[in-house]
């Protein structure tokens, strides 16, 4: 008979051991998936996880993909701590990109250092307002924010499609559903010459540290933590629950919007229908893998970005579909969540029959 016993203190050893165990289990399961798909396991494994780290190009691409993941996951982690589930960061990301890009396209060919900051600001406000809808409906009518943010994601993606087919379409683009390419003043500066690594990465890392200090050293951070862990205690302490909901959604929406405009003005360089590539959803995994820790998010985002790059090369080398990446990410999250049981509980083996 195996039984779970609650630990009096969470185990420090397991805090580090459980992610490791989860990684090993995921690696093993990936192997099985490859085997079932009739692919050479070791070769595919190498292509997925090791090869991207050996070439400078794929390493830089990993950083490019990590930047939006870090940013969005940081925003989401604030809400997740407080029990506010913004599942629609993808939508806020798209709306931010559309709004910011619209400003860039309005000032097409206008030079000025002020343009990018203006676009970013508009994107942040757009993302905040979009997430704000969910905050308003939750605080005013107790409507579940999971469903609202998700439904708004579908709406946002359709809106993007309507925009690139209509008002924001490139007038000289032979009717392709794409915007004009952004001009220099509206393009994100590159921080690593010769690659696509843009200033968004630096912003993401700075935000991670800001958020670390905010959560751990500032009173509002403490309030958010307590609202999530002990909602009743938070109420007795007089913390305003509605304020937490608004704060969580506005912060996560704003950051997601900024990530969106960075993606459009950085690696892509124009507004395209395939801009929403699932970063908003993947960032949820990133946040959980890091156990909502801001510094941890940098590392988990890098790990997930690695699987994206690996997935792309596996597509080329082994003709594996891109979806292998989401299978892998789903499994990783399963194992991480499951292994965390070791932190809070311990398995006790009992060899006698209980009365």
């Amino acid at each position, binding site marked *: 008979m195996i039984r*779970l016993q*609650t630990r009096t203190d969470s185990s420090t050893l397991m805090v580090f051991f459980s992610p490791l165990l989860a990684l090993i289990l995921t690696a093993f399961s990936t192997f099985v998936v490859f085997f079932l*798909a009739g692919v050479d396991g070791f070769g595919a494994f190498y292509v997925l996880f090791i090869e991207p780290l050996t070439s400078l190009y794929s390493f830089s691409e990993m950083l490019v993909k990590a930047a939006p993941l870090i940013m969005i996951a940081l925003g989401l982690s604030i809400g997740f701590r407080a029990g506010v*589930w913004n*599942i629609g960061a993808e939508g806020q990301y798209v709306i931010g990109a559309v709004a910011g890009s619209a400003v860039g396209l309005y000032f097409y060919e206008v030079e000025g250092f002020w343009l990018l900051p203006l676009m970013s600001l508009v994107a942040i406000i757009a993302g905040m307002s979009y997430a704000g809808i969910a905050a308003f*409906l939750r605080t005013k*009518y*107790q*409507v*579940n924010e*999971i*469903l*609202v943010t*998700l*439904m*708004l994601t*579908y*709406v946002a993606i*359709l*809106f993007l*499609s*309507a925009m690139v*087919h*209509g008002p924001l379409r490139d007038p000289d683009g032979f009717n392709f559903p794409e915007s004009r390419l952004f001009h220099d003043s509206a393009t994100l500066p590159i921080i690593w010459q010769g690659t696509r690594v843009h200033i968004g990465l630096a912003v993401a890392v700075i935000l991670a540290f800001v958020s670390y200090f905010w959560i751990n050293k500032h009173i509002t951070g403490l309030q958010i933590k307590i609202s999530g862990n002990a909602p009743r205690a938070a109420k007795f302490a007089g913390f305003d629950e509605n304020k937490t909901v608004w704060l969580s959604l506005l912060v996560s929406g704003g950051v997601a919007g900024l990530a969106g405009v960075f993606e459009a003005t950085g690696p892509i360089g124009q507004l395209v229908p395939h801009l929403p590539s699932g970063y908003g*959803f993947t960032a*949820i*995994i990133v946040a*959980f893998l890091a156990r909502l820790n801001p510094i941890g998010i940098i590392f988990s985002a890098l790990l997930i970005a690695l699987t994206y790059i690996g997935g792309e090369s596996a597509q080329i080398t082994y003709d594996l*579909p*891109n*979806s*292998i*990446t*989401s*299978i*892998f*990410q*789903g*499994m990783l*999250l*399963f194992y991480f*969540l*499951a292994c*965390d*049981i070791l932190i*809070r*509980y311990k398995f006790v083996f009992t060899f006698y029959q209980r009365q």
Partner: protein
Amino acid sequence: MNELFVQIILGISIASVPLIFAATGELLVERSGVLNLGVEGMMIVGAITGFVVQFHFDNALLSLAAAIIAGMSIAAIFAFLTQIMLTNQVATGLALTLFGLGVSAFWGRAYSKVTVDRVDAINVPGLSDLPIVGPLVFSYDPLFYLSILMVILVWYFLNRTKKGLILRAIGDNHDAAHAIGHKVVRYRFIAILFGGAMAGIGGAYLSLVQVPIWVEGMTAGRGWISLALVVFASWQPFKVIVGAIIFGGITILQLHAQGFGVNVDAQYLSMLPYLMTIFVLVTLRIRIKSNTNRVMPSCLGKIFHSTQ
């Protein structure tokens, strides 16, 4: 005009069936106190499994059985993680959706350019030929009737059987139910499997009846709409049908709108079902205000661990 009317009604029914299946399954799961956000993932796995089996064996019953088993197997992952490994239900449900979308896309890439025989409507000789009433009442596919039957069965189970009462008790207070000796984890485990089976059929309906082809991500948010439907129905089985018809109606009207001369970009019309979901959730809360807290299962989404 009559013909168009009949067409629209039929269209609405066909659009509602997958929602009825998935939402009724999820309703039972939520009544037991578990929030499974993986409906979308379970549906799409049902859709691809049903499609693949239908493609190879051309046997509707076998395809459905396969979809049910697929839905249950993937639901079993969720049940194991949340009930045995005590994981966070929101995060696990999301992981399930991602995993389901990935697995279905991976498996379905070989089937993207084929079609299968559509599961047809049953025609009752004589009755189906009646004008208007015939096509409206007697010319659906068997699954349509099954979906209504399942709603009735779930209602009966919850409200008229002892086990149903225990399940509701567990959803409302798992500690008390456990204290008087009910098997909380066992009930929830079975409920989750049932939810998986229902989502599996709902998904298979999409790929076998609605459109007999496989398209990656073809559930397009229906799993999420089903989750909203459960809230809309305030956890009452029969109201699920009402909600499903409203959403089915929006979907179909949006398709017919351009035929009626509504000159709006297709993208804006496609937004309607999603906007409608939000709108309905809001009006519902305005209408019943604070009462919702009373109808929602009190232990919804909470982790249960017996210290004994």
